[in-house]
């Protein structure tokens, strides 16, 4: 069934100089030049609204707009719902999507406001006073111990030291390009934070950034071997992902080419479909065994992170993980991104990270085991304000991926699964991969994090807090607006005005 295209290419011919940049830069082949009529033409049906042509058009002759050709309005059956049914009727297939859930579900960050000092307590000026954002992730001992001479025994279980409470979360080499990984690795290294390999293994070129690398072990075990485990600063066991709780990763065969297949240790062109569970983990006690297997394999030098999707019972799950020997729990909320996920799962499974985080932090404190683990919060942390709110709700640090992709050029067209990313990020096509110059990509990531760090400091200073640890779990610094009693109760915050 043919539909009128979702987007329209609007070309202002009076501005078009026929430079054909749009044509050369569109991997979807939307634009072409008609020699006869000396005009640029376009096939809008192929457009995914990635805005590459719009961005590069030197005379701003182009814009992409949402088509207003719609099916008859229906509040129950939306245009999208109907078209998805047509598509499935045609193909019999599961619908695929990329990036985070785009639906208008509540974003609690936006309903939380931050405090500032007035009169009774001075705000602190980060331009003039020290303002600290360093964070250590890892298990903290219950009791101090002393050496024979009475001095403190300062040995600790392994800790990750972050210059600021933000890290780049897991995106596999395969789902994203070599140059995207290079950008992330170089930026993490320069910033004193960490990036995460995702489940695609670690390209040998990036072993040099090991000090700032978290290596992931997922259910498919792609790219996992002893050198890989030892290459990083921490090991993350991926139990689940916010965008697709309950299923494993999925790399289309078209992306498993060249070094990607080598790094993953899979044949070229084969779909890399991770099992839904880890087949050696059917329960919490099994997780404990994997945690300690990995610790044994790396001689207890590295902290182990367990990453789980935020699902209904997240507080109890986190409590189990906190007792499993894991050093850090990463919770991924339902708005988290993905390179490819079944649409129904992405849009309907999981819970908001804000509620999950608040519930987990509270549960671990109620059980007196909050010190056993650090908590990383991920799944749509979009700005420095979100980071501050997450820390105040109880997170030790945040994972960001979508924001990092945006910094590298992503325009959130949500077409990663096609492998034709015009921005050189979610693609393996060499001509597209080269569009992301890691010199530029890493610098933009560094700029973004620098900017966030400044903003975090400004917000902290306003609250009269000069070190990030005094913000962690400091829920008194937050107030809700427009939230129900129940939501406030779960978030553990008061309503504005209280």
């Amino acid at each position, binding site marked *: 069934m043919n539909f009128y295209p979702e987007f329209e290419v609007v070309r202002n011919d009076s501005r078009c100089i026929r430079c054909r940049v749009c044509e050369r830069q569109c991997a979807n082949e939307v634009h072409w030049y008609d020699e006869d009529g000396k005009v640029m033409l376009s096939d809008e049906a192929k457009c995914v609204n990635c805005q590459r042509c719009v961005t590069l058009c030197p005379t701003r002759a182009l814009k992409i707009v949402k088509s207003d050709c719609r099916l008859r309005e229906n509040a129950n059956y939306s245009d999208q719902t109907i078209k998805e049914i047509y598509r499935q009727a045609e193909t019999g297939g599961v619908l695929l999507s990329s990036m985070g859930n785009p639906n208008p579900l509540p974003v609690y960050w936006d309903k939380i406001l931050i405090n500032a*000092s007035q009169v*009774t*307590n*001075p705000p*602190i000026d980060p331009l003039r*006073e*020290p303002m*600290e954002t*360093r*964070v*250590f992730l890892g298990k*903290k*001992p219950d*009791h*101090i111990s*002393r050496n024979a001479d009475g*001095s*403190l025994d*300062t040995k*600790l279980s392994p*800790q990750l030291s972050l210059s600021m409470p933000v890290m780049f979360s897991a995106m596999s080499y395969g789902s994203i390009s070599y140059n995207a990984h290079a950008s992330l690795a170089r930026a993490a290294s320069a910033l004193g934070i960490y990036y995460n390999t995702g489940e695609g293994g670690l390209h040998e070129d990036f072993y040099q950034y090991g000090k700032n690398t978290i290596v992931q072990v997922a259910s498919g075990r792609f790219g996992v071997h002893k050198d890989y485990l030892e290459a990083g600063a921490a090991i993350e066991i991926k139990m689940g992902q916010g965008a697709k709780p309950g299923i494993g990763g999925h790399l289309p065969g078209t992306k498993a080419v060249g070094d990607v297949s080598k790094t993953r240790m899979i044949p070229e062109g084969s779909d890399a479909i991770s099992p839904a569970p880890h087949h050696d983990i059917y329960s919490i006690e099994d997780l404990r065994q994997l945690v300690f297997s990995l610790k044994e394999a790396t001689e207890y030098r590295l902290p182990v992170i367990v990453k789980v999707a935020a699902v209904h019972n997240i507080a109890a799950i986190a409590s189990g993980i906190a007792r499993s020997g894991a050093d850090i729990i990463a919770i991924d909320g339902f708005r988290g991104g993905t390179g490819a996920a079944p649409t129904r799962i992405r849009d309907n499974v999981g819970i908001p990270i804000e509620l999950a985080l608040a519930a987990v932090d509270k549960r671990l*404190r109620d059980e*007196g085991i*909050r*010190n056993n683990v650090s908590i990383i919060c991920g799944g749509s942390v979009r700005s420095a304000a979100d980071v501050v709110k997450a820390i105040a709700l*109880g997170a030790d640090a945040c994972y960001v991926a979508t924001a990092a992709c945006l910094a590298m050029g992503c325009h959130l067209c949500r077409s990663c699964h096609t492998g034709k990313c015009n921005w050189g990020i979610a693609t393996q096509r060499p001509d597209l991969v080269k569009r992301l110059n890691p010199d530029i990509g890493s610098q933009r990531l560094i700029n973004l994090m620098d900017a966030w760090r400044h903003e975090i400091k400004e917000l902290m200073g306003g*609250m*009269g*807090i*000069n*070190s990030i*640890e*005094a*913000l*962690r*779990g*400091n*829920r*008194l*610094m937050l107030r809700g607006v427009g939230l129900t009693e129940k939501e406030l109760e779960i978030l553990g915050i008061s309503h504005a005005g209280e």
Partner: protein
Amino acid sequence: MIPLEGQVRIPSGCAVSAMISRDGRRMNGESIIQSMIPMHDRSNGLGGGFAAYGIYPEYRDFYALHIFFNSRSAQSECMTLLKEYFEIVQDEHIKVRKIPQITDEPIIRRVFVSPMQSVLRHLQIDEKELVVRVVNRINAQLDGSYVFSCGKNMGAFKAVGFPEDVGRYYRLEEYEAYSWTAHGRYPTNTPGWWGGAHPFCMLDYSIVHNGEISSYDANRRFIEMYGYKCTLQTDTEVITYIADYLLRRQGLTLDEMAAVIAAPFWSTIEGKSEAEKQKYTYLRTVFPSLLVTGPFSIILGFDGGLMALNDRLKLRSMVVGEQDDMVYIASEEAAIRVMAPDIQNIWSPAGGEPVIVRVKEGAF
């Protein structure tokens, strides 16, 4: 209705003062009362109080509970509870002088108790832990009873009013202590409640504090994991629990505790010797949630000494004076000059730098 302490968080500004004899000489409360007069404007009449160490030598082996009761029935309920855990050695009124400035007084009792050995054996805890648990239970659960002091050979005296009036009211000139601390309160949103005045005490620790800490909820939520309950929602209360947790339960030294709650900046730590760097990094890594930020100057009193500490940016004033065996600490120099008019040696300690004063061994 305007909410009381415990129903809402109450920030307040304040005046603090302290005097201690390193020789363990006992001095009456006149001087410390006088020291609060020049700092009158730092309080607003909604709370004043004192802590005195060495005042009950004849009862030194017993815990001296100072308790406010709202009613006779609250008192009898509380006493019933106490008798389950303690031998009651003495139960008496705390003598007061009625003055027009102090009104609405509750029943104020002093009860010397001794933990029952059978209870300790049964619960398998030490006696200090028992006292903490019972006091926490009374304060959190018994309506109308509030234990505001529970150490040995020391006591707190506090009320709603200006500190100099509170001192007169409790007849502090009749007590003799080797160490005195005092507090005048300027709460910003409470009608004032007797229990909410300072010092705040736990066992022999007493805290007087000036400031409003911005890390409050981070500190509170951490410390509440370890059995403490912040019923008053005041800074002083949480700082007292932190001190108890770090000193008594974790066994840190006073210096180490100072390096946790007013931790040196990372940039400062970088410049230290390797051993110190390790120590400070360790303390900041292990106890990040007990870093206290925002302005504060606190004086922590304990058996045999006291410690004064400013926040690490020194956002609150605090001066220290020394003369012969005496050390004086106050929010303002004027207060010290009242206690020691011809004092020469006065200085202002740096932010985060603890001033620790101990009485000579055996002198108290």
